[in-house]
């Protein structure tokens, strides 16, 4: 093995490794310094961790959409970020209506369910339309084509919703039941955060069972292995793919509501960056792999919220949190270089590009 390695290694590898190691050293050094200065207390770190996990929860739910679609079609549904935006953006109106009805805080759970249904329905239908109109005709085209289409669709949707609902901010009303926090020992965990983390986890389990245990899940897996064969075995490939998009849409819709519980402002641009992060998360965990998406999202959320203070602060970088997106993307790059199949590996057989 080693011998082969020595023979195969090229200049590029060396440089890439050098870069990687350099960054690693930076990270470690930064962390050590930060921890030594003791600028942050333990409870601070815990708070950041919880925040990160909550954020990760949201990312996870979006990432599931990417992962499902990628798993089946081997394509990055770039427009998934807008699928994510469309639901909650619309749901804010439902929320306003519920307030007008006076249900919002009298039947909080019911209201929440309604809002989630609205959000999920919108997101799902957008996802299905997207597949039907933009992707299905291109299923056999070279892989660059659907990707470009997806990018186009993403912009089209973003600005369509801007046109429909306007470019202003749509605040999402607070829910009394979710205000405040629980004290677990000395650790404060805000109810919204708890909901986000739990919601994500449950959704992940549900999807996982659907994919692994149910009939449609079986069909999905066989389609992802080989569409032609699946078709021969009497599986309705189109229906399976539509279902997949629908599932992705639903999880995105629900993600949207959790997102609004945490960050109660909706606008037409809200999908873009979370979408990008979620994709990063999906790759991080091993795209096409449902638990992977969850794990990846959690890790990413964690690194994003803890990273700047831990790594950069120590290096004496001012306003480190400005660079947290940079951290996320750097992670993406290096994951793809050193472990392209992600933390848990790509569950589905991967096609060569």
């Amino acid at each position, binding site marked *: *093995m080693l*011998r*082969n390695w020595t*023979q*195969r290694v*090229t200049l590029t590898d060396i440089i890439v490794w050098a870069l990687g190691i350099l960054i690693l050293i930076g990270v470690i050094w930064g962390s050590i310094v930060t921890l030594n200065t003791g600028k942050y207390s333990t409870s601070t770190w815990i708070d950041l961790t919880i925040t990160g996990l909550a954020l990760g929860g949201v990312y996870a739910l979006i990432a599931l959409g990417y992962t499902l679609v990628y798993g089946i079609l081997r394509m990055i549904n770039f427009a998934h970020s807008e699928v994510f935006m469309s639901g909650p953006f619309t749901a804010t109106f439902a929320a306003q209506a519920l307030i007008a009805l006076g249900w919002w805080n009298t039947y909080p759970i019911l209201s929440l369910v309604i809002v989630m249904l609205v959000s999920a329905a919108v997101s799902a239908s957008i996802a299905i339309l997207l597949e039907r109109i933009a992707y299905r005709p291109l299923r056999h085209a070279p892989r660059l084509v659907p990707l470009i289409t997806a990018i186009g669709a993403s912009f089209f949707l973003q600005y369509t919703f801007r046109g429909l609902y306007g470019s202003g901010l749509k605040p999402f009303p607070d829910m009394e039941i979710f205000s405040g926090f629980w004290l677990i020992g000395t650790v404060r965990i805000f109810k919204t955060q708890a909901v986000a983390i739990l919601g994500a986890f449950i959704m992940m389990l549900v999807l996982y069972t659907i994919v692994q245990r149910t009939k449609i899940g079986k069909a999905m897996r066989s389609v992802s292995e080989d569409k032609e064969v699946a078709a021969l075995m009497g599986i309705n490939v189109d229906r399976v793919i539509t279902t997949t998009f629908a599932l992705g849409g639903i999880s995105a819709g629900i993600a949207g509501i959790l997102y609004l519980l945490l960050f109660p402002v909706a606008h037409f641009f809200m999908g873009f960056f979370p979408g990008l992060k979620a994709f990063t998360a999906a790759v991080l965990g091993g795209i096409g792999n449902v638990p992977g998406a969850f794990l990846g999202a959690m890790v990413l959320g964690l690194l994003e919220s803890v990273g700047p203070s831990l790594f950069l602060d120590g290096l004496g970088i001012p306003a480190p949190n400005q660079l947290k997106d940079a951290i996320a993307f750097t992670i993406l790059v290096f994951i793809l270089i050193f472990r392209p199949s992600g933390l848990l590996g790509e569950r589905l057989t991967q096609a060569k590009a």
Partner: protein
Amino acid sequence: MTLLVAKNVTKRFGGLVALNKIDIEMKDNAIQSIIGPNGAGKTTFFNCVTGFYTPEEGDILLGEHNITGLSPDRVTQLGISRTYQNIRLFKNMTSVENILVGMHPHLKAGLIGGIFRGPLTRKEEAEALKEARRILNFVGLKGRGDMMAKNLPYGEQRRLEIGRALASKPKLLLLDEPTAGMNPSETHEMMNFIRHLRDELGVTILLIEHQMRVVMGISELISVLDFGEKIAEGTPVEIQNNPHVIEAYLGRGAASGLVQAAA
């Protein structure tokens, strides 16, 4: 003298052992074949030789170079080129361009040359073009030069692929089922063509082949693979009455299905 030496080459995919301690030697200017049921590891062996896979164990030597684990482009530059079981041409480039790409290792022009097209570059390109046409004629594609590769009929695509492989002036040419999907007469043509190649250009040729007629017809030495093991080696006659081979082909026919699924 021997051109290619593969010493106990072993390649695993996870649990599955695709090649297990394979030894194959090839003399200069020989025509040899590898046969075996589907999934016996024939193509895997090709991939090891051409550098797409790095075997876990064993060495592959081309002449005096140890090419084990070299990247494909290096291997090609050292003088091995191949064709594919399912034809893989550059579909949207013309035949000539396909050949020209094949000649890549022997051309120099880089970024600067490409931009300024100095006398040297122009000369090189002109000669390359002439050579390309010569090769086209040689493989019997005269006048097809400017056709999009994907618009050529099947047989001609095969020939173009071989032409492309020849363009890199290989010492060793690996042909992966060159007669696949051909009717008897085409097959016959192809056999003659392969002999012709060896005699005219002095290339050493290693075949993967299913059609026994072809194998027995043209190869001087045959190695039989089954489940990644070399179960026999010898002249056509020896192979024809080797019990193991017969077993491999008739006896466990059913088994081969499974292996196929795995590989």
